[in-house]
């Protein structure tokens, strides 16, 4: 055992959480190894979505000079509420989105992650790909002292391991940080396509003046057949990321096939014209942990910490996750640096990690929206009844039939009463406010 492979820290997974942790530790002078099971960082990823830059700027202040492979800045964003044949579209556009670097960019993670990992390698971290960590190595007292991999002679040792393994959190379970697999009630399945369109055509369709403008749309209502969940449409450089995410439970209960839900969305009369003539280049599905604050794993134990999707760090309501992961990775990295200085890798010392997260937006937001998943599941009228009502009301409001306006207003109110009583509406609003306030 004289020449066993030893590092100052091991990071499992080269996603945003893992790379942020590795970068932070490498900047702090630690000898870090990142072990990634994909062929390259980002290979196992599907994400095409909105990336918020604030967290990246904290980890890599000069990120802009390093030319990150962003798709388009988000200069217009908002919501589409679909009924079966109509849509209410609430979009926000502002000149203030036009600064550079912008607050948010659309990103294809299969392009972004390799770049991000390269920055960690440039900082001195060692990136090993095509290698799966199969188990945690523990000493006789149960402290984590390294990992084993699917490679021959595959054991690596370090006083601290940061698990950033993603949604399939097998190691997190092995570390004893979480009891069991996530129930399907708290896991969303997102299906997504990347549809290629020439940049010029894309810009015309979405009303963009050039490559430095982009749109991010979250879609509710008929996109998920009125069930809890969202659809999304994001403009990339020369293509569209379009997808639907719903809780696994809903797919099972309602016997829905994910790709059929997506096909339906793509063929919605309001959506279809944006996609016409585009070539589907990629199709895939990925799980998103929506366990919420109350079901998050313990974040640290002796010699080990967990960050990102593995720890359920997702704010589904605001389609955030990557920024939570980067911030958490950075804080785990900082905690590992402090632990090295103190020579203390105990659970007690590493609990600083959780305290940092509690002081940050990561756990504050997760705490505030802790009831959101349950709320939406128990109040399907928000995605179904209300969205359809709004569309019906809009149709009445915007069309002239030679009917007095007073009669029209009565009709609309009657419609509301029939589909959901006024007390029901009042009750729903109250519940929504509670869920939002946390």
């Amino acid at each position, binding site marked *: 055992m004289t020449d066993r*492979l030893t590092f100052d820290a091991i990071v499992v997974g080269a996603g945003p959480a893992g790379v942020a942790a590795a970068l932070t530790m490498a900047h702090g002078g630690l000898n870090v190894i990142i072990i990634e099971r994909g062929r390259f960082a980002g290979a196992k990823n599907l994400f095409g979505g909105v990336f918020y830059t604030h967290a990246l700027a904290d980890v890599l202040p000069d990120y802009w000079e390093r030319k990150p492979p962003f798709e388009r800045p988000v200069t217009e964003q908002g919501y589409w509420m679909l009924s079966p044949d109509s849509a209410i579209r609430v979009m926000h556009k502002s000149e203030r989105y036009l600064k550079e670097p912008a607050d948010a960019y659309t990103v294809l993670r299969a392009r972004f992650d390799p770049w991000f990992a390269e920055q960690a390698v440039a900082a001195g971290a*060692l990136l*090993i790909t*095509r290698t799966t960590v199969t188990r945690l190595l523990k000493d006789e007292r149960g402290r984590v002292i390294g990992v084993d991999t699917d*490679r021959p*002679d595959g054991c*690596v040792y370090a006083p601290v391991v940061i698990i950033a393994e993603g949604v399939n959190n097998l190691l997190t379970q092995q570390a004893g940080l979480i009891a069991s697999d996530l129930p399907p009630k708290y896991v969303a399945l997102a299906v997504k396509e990347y549809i290629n369109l020439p940049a010029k055509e894309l810009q015309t369709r979405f009303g963009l003046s050039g490559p430095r403008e982009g749109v991010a749309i979250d879609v509710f209502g008929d996109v998920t057949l009125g069930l809890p969940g969202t659809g999304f449409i994001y403009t990339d450089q020369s293509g569209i990321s379009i997808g639907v995410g719903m809780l696994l439970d809903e797919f099972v209960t309602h016997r829905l096939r994910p790709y059929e839900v997506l096909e339906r969305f793509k063929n919605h009369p309001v959506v279809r014209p944006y996609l016409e003539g585009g070539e589907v280049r990629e199709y895939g599905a990925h799980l998103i942990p929506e366990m919420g604050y109350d079901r998050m794993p313990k974040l640290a134990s002796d010699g080990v910490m967990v960050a990102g999707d593995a720890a359920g760090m997702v704010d589904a309501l605001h389609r955030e996750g990557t920024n939570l992961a980067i911030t958490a990775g950075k804080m785990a990295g900082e905690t590992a640096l402090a632990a090295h200085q103190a020579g203390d890798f105990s659970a007690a010392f590493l609990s600083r990690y959780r305290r940092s997260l509690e002081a940050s937006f990561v756990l504050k937001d997760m705490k505030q929206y802790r009831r959101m998943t349950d709320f939406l599941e128990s109040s399907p009228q928000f995605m179904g009844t209300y969205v359809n009502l709004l569309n019906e009301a809009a149709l009445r409001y915007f069309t002239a039939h030679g009917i007095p306006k007073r009669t029209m207003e009565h009709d609309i109110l009657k419609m509301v009463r029939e589909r959901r009583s006024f007390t029901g509406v009042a009750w729903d609003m109250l519940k929504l406010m509670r869920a939002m306030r946390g």
Partner: protein
Amino acid sequence: MHAVVAIKQVPDTSNVRIDPETGTLIREGVPAIVNPYDIHAVEAAVQLKERLGGGQVTVITMGPPKAAEALLECVEQGADRAILISDRKFGGADTLATSYVLAHTIEAINAELPVDIIFFGKQAIDGDTAQVGPGVATRLNIPLITYAVAIEEFDLAARRAVVHRRVEQGIEVLETTLPVLLTVEKEIAPVRHAPLPRLIAAARYQPETWTATSPVLFDPQQIGLKGSPTVVGKAYTPPPRSGGDVLSVADLGLDAVVARAMAVIGQAHVRDLQPVTGVVS
């Protein structure tokens, strides 16, 4: 024992598409891999080294800077030294120019440490010519064994080896002097899962880069486009074949089916065919 393995980085052809308008390969977004036969060649060299209890495996490739990735994969598999021969002046090389560059490189390597055996994959999956290995053997004036599937004996002291070679009828067993050049089939050695310490070594390894002028000088007349007499006239995607006719014996009867088949064959100008009527079980 000193083995040299020449490899090539190729587009993963399971992903390759042809631009229907220009007839050229769409390389954008297509992952690059080590030519599948070549990685077996590396493995064969490494296993030979292990069998002999020591030696050196040197891997070489000619290609763009990106081809260094392919070399690192070979280092992971156990190669000791990797040389990237890369220079814009090499660009546009056909098999003649490529075989010149590789042969000249191997001569230079041989001058540093004598080479006992040279491995090539039997062919590259992007060009499918199977010309470069034999070309190099010819230029070096050493024995060539193509489609090698096993090295039965390898005797450094006696300077001889016994190699199995796949031919259509079966296996040829050939005895050769050393040094020898083999182009190999995949059976020569199964690719093993590289151990983690090798991956770490490769992640820290920096391949050497040889240019057209340093550390050895290549003849500018024999490299790149200048040294490549091959001209590609046209590349195109052949039209997809239409499906064949299905004649049902049950519906038409055997004689009618045979008659129809013979008529079609006759139209295709196939001569001297006699129908053999009999029962097909």
